[in-house]
Every structure is written in C-alpha cells, then in structure tokens.
C-alpha cells in the first residue's frame, strides 16, 4: 500500500502543478481592433502630447506600435493648436504604441472643422 502511495504521489504533484498553471493562464487576448483591415490604407493617428500624423499603415504589432509610410505630421502653432496647413513630411516612420491616443481610417472621414490660430 505504502509503496503504491509513494508511486502515485510524485505523479499527482505534476498534475496539480499543471492545473494551477492552467488556472493562471489568462484567456487568449485578441486585439480589440483588427488593424489588418487598415493595412495599406491612409490612417489618421493622434498621439499623446497632441501630435497628429497621417500616413499609410504598413505594419503593426500586438502592442500597437505602428509602421507608417508617407507620414505627414500636422504641426502645432504657437497657440498649441494643430493647424491644417502647417505640415511636414516625415516619410517612413515607426510610431510607439504606448503613446498612441487614437487611430482612424482617412477613407470615409473628412475634416468638418479645424481650429486655426485666428
């Protein structure tokens, strides 16, 4: 009897560990937004700090780091407002995911009103 128990115990322990591991495994997380839809499309990206860039989405990762091509940044003016005409071209860029504030496709959206310095 005691021999059998000893045999079983080591077998049981790993099983218990496996169960524990399963318990702590978080449910599989899928990205809330499937950026594949926007691939090779123009997107407007707002960043923390108030920057606004527009570019063609070329790539991304799980952390929402982005790769944009033909990137254009709308510059802030002296009043700290983003203006429509003051832009600069950045070209091929990598944008950090942790400072990303919003991302939306350009197609199907238009600027209704944008603040100007006046």
């Amino acid at each position, binding site marked *: 009897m005691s021999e059998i128990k000893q045999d079983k115990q080591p077998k049981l322990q790993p099983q218990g560990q496996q169960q524990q591991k399963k318990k702590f495994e978080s449910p599989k997380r*899928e*990205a809330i937004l*499937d*950026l*594949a839809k926007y*691939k090779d499309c123009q997107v407007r990206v707002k*960043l*923390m*700090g108030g*920057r606004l*860039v527009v570019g063609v989405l*070329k*790539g*991304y*990762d799980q952390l929402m*780091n*982005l*790769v944009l091509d033909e990137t254009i940044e709308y*510059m*802030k*003016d*002296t009043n700290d407002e983003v203006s429509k005409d*003051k832009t*600069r*071209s*950045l*070209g*091929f*860029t*990598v*944008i*950090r*995911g942790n*400072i990303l504030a919003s991302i939306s496709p350009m197609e199907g959206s238009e600027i209704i009103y944008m603040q100007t310095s006046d």
Partner: protein
Amino acid sequence: MSLPADILPLEVIDKTIDQPVWIILQSNREFTGKLVGFDDFVNVIIEDAKEWIVNEEHSELVMEHNGRMLLSGNNIVMLVPGGKKDV
C-alpha cells in the same frame, strides 16, 4: 486570428541599427544620430546625437552630444529611419 503584419515595427527599428535615425519626443524636442541599440521599451542608445528644438517654421540645433547617449523610451513618440530630412 489575423495574420501578423508583414512589417513589424521593432523589426524596422532593428534594421536601422548602425544607421542614422531621427527620434521625435512628446515635447518639441528631437534627436538625430546613429542608432546603436534599443530594448523592448524602445529605450534607445544613439551615437553623436544632435538635439533639436522644433518650432512651427524651423528646427533649431541646441546641442551636440559626443559619444553615446541613452534616451529613455518613455518620451519617444516616433522614430524615423534615415535621419532628419529637412536639414
């Protein structure tokens, strides 16, 4: 499950190692220099960095740093492989 995107951002950064890079921070400050390395947080080491303050119209060179410089990833917004274009 979606297929992974063809171009991964960190791969792009990895490919710019040993090449000029232009790093834009949340503030109006920017750095250019040669990218030496980076980590998962995109803390970055650049060599012979130039520090710029950017206004609407132009960017002003405020400092040149010799040797290597560690730049915290905390404030980095954008990285542009190839360096600064408009100067």
